[in-house]
C-alpha cells in the first residue's frame, strides 16, 4: 500500500500537500526511479485483541531497534527457551547488508549526532555491527564530520563517501547548509535510508493511504487539515505532518482533550481516527512492526502511560507458544 501511495504522490505531484519543497521533490523522484537500497522501517500498530490498525509508519529514522532485535531475543533465550518470538530482525539485517556488499563500495559509513544520550549511537553502532558481520568495512561519523569538497561528500580525511547510513531526518538534512549540495552530489553518494522515505515518514501519508485504500481493515480514517470530512471524526488524534516522538500530538475524545506540546513548524496537521488501544494496568501497548528489506521481520512492544507513545515509553519483550502439531 505504501509503495502504491508513493507512486501516487509522485504521479499526482502531491509534494506540496506534504510540505515537501520542489527541490526535495526532484531528488525524491530521481531516488524513487533509481531504487537505491533501503534497509529498514517500523510500522506502529494498535492491536485491541481482534483488529490491527496502522497508527503511522516510521520509515526514515526509527529507533528501538536493538531492544527489538537483540535484547528481547536474549531475554527469550535465557528465560523461555522453548517459546518463540516474532523476531528475525538481526538475521535479516545481516542478510541485507550481505546483499549490498558490492553495491556499497569499499567502506560503508554510518552517521548520527553525538550527544549525552545513548540511543542514537547505540542504534547506529548496532547497525554497523550487523554490517561488519556481513563483511563490510565500516566507519562511524558524526553528522558534522560529513564534509563537502565542492563536488562530493567526504570524510574528515577527504575520502569520498560512496555509501552512508544516516540516523538523521531527511527533512532536517534538506533544510541545512549542505541540503543545497545534495543534488550536485546525488550521483556520488548513496544515502541510506534514501530520500524517498521522506514521503512515508511524513504523516501526510496517512490520509493519502486512507483516500486510496479506505476499505482496508488495517487503516484508520485520516484526513488533511483542510478536508471537510475530518468533521465526521467524533474522536480523533491530531498529528503534525512532520512530528516526532509524540510531539505536538493531541487527542480529542468524549472524555476530554490531551496532548503533548511542542514547537509548531507551521506545516500543518492531519486528523486521524483514534484506534482502540487496550489499557493494561495503566499502560497502553503499541506494537512496532519492523520491516527489513521490504519484508516483515519482527515486532517490539512499547508501553506508555497514555495513548500517545513518547520517548518515555517502556520496551516490553514478547513471546508466543508455538502450536503443537496434533499427534496422529
Amino acid at each position, binding site marked *: 500500500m505504501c509503495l502504491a501511495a508513493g507512486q501516487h504522490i509522485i504521479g499526482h505531484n502531491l509534494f506540496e500537500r506534504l510540505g515537501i519543497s520542489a527541490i526535495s521533490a526532484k531528488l525524491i523522484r530521481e531516488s524513487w526511479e533509481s531504487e537505491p537500497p533501503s534497509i529498514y522501517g517500523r510500522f506502529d500498530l494498535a492491536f485491541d485483541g481482534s483488529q490491527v490498525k496502522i497508527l503511522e509508519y516510521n520509515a526514515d*529514522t*526509527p*529507533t528501538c531497534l*536493538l531492544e527489538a532485535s*537483540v535484547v528481547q*531475543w*536474549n531475554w527469550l533465550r535465557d528465560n523461555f527457551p522453548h517459546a*518463540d*518470538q*516474532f523476531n528475525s530482525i538481526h538475521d535479516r539485517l545481516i542478510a541485507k547488508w550481505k546483499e549490498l556488499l558490492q553495491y556499497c563500495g569499499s567502506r560503508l559509513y554510518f*552517521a*548520527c*549526532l*553525538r*550527544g*549525552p*544520550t*545513548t*540511543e*542514537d*549511537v*547505540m542504534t*547506529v*553502532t*548496532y547497525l554497523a*555491527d550487523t554490517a*561488519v*558481520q556481513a*563483511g*563490510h*568495512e*565500516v*566507519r*562511524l*561519523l558524526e553528522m*558534522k564530520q*560529513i*564534509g563537502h*569538497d*565542492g563536488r562530493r561528500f567526504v570524510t*574528515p*580525511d*577527504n575520502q569520498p563517501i560512496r555509501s552512508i547510513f544516516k*540516523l*538523521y*531526518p531527511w527533512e*532536517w538534512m534538506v533544510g*541545512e*547548509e*549542505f*541540503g543545497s549540495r545534495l543534488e550536485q552530489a546525488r550521483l556520488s553518494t548513496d544515502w541510506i535510508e534514501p530520500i524517498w522515505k521522506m514521503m512515508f515518514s511524513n504523516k501526510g501519508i496517512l490520509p493519502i493511504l486512507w483516500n486510496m485504500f479506505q476499505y482496508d481493515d488495517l487503516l484508520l480514517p485520516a484526513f488533511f487539515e483542510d478536508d471537510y470530512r475530518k468533521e465526521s471524526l467524533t474522536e480523533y488524534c491530531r498529528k503534525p505532518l512532520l*512530528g*516526532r*516522538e509524540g*510531539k505536538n500530538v493531541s487527542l480529542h475524545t468524549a472524555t476530554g482533550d490531551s496532548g*503533548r506540546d*511542542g514547537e509548531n513548524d507551521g506545516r500543518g496537521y492531519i486528523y486521524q481516527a483514534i484506534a482502540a488501544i487496550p489499557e493494561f494496568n495503566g499502560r497502553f501497548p503499541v506494537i512496532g512492526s519492523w520491516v527489513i528489506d521490504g519484508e516483515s521481520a519482527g515486532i517490539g512492544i512499547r508501553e*506508555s502511560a497514555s495513548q500517545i507513545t513518547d*520517548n*518515555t515509553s517502556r520496551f516490553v519483550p514478547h513471546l508466543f507458544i508455538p502450536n503443537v502439531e496434533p499427534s496422529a
Partner: protein
Amino acid sequence: MKKSAIVDLAILGAAAIAITGCDNKAQVQTCVDQNNVVQDDRNCEQSDQLKAQYAQIPPRPVPYWWYYHWVYGGTSRDDHGGGYVPYGHSAIIDGGRMSPEPDVPAMRASQAISSGETISDGHAAFGGFGAAGEAVGEAGVLGVASEAPNLPTTRGVATHHSESRLGIFYVGGWFIVFGRRQLLRIHRC
C-alpha cells in the same frame, strides 16, 4: 521465527561496556552550564584555560564562561516526547560529580562517535549537516552521558570479538548487561 540461536555483537558488545560504565572502566565527562544543561566541550575547554589564567577569584561581573564546567557521571534527562529525535545539546545532567572519581579514567560524552577526528586540509567544508539537532535541542530516549570506544575501521572485527555475546537493558535507571546464559553485571549509572 527462525533465527540464529545466539546473537553476536562485536562492536556493540564492546561499546556497551563503555556506555554503561560497567566495571568502573570509565566515567563520563560532560560539559554543562550553570543550569546543568549540556554544552559543547569547547566551552569548558575555554573556561578551563581562562579560569587558570584568572586564578582563584572570578572578576566582577562574573564572565559567562565561568559557568561552564565539567560533570562526571550523572544521568541525562529531557522532557520531550516517542519515535526519533536526535539528541542535541539541551539535555540536562542530573547528579554526577564535580570532580572525577579517583583512579577511574574519564571519557568525554561528546566523543561517543569519535573516529575520523582529523580535520582535512581545508579544501572541504564541514558542519553542513547536524545543526538541526542542536537547534531543536531535543534529547533521545533514556540513558546516560556516554562514550563508545573508537570504532575499528578494518574488517574482521567480529572475529576478534566473536565471544562477545552481550545484551543490555535499561530498567528504571539501571543498566543491566547480560550475556548468553547469565546476568553479567548490573550497574547503576
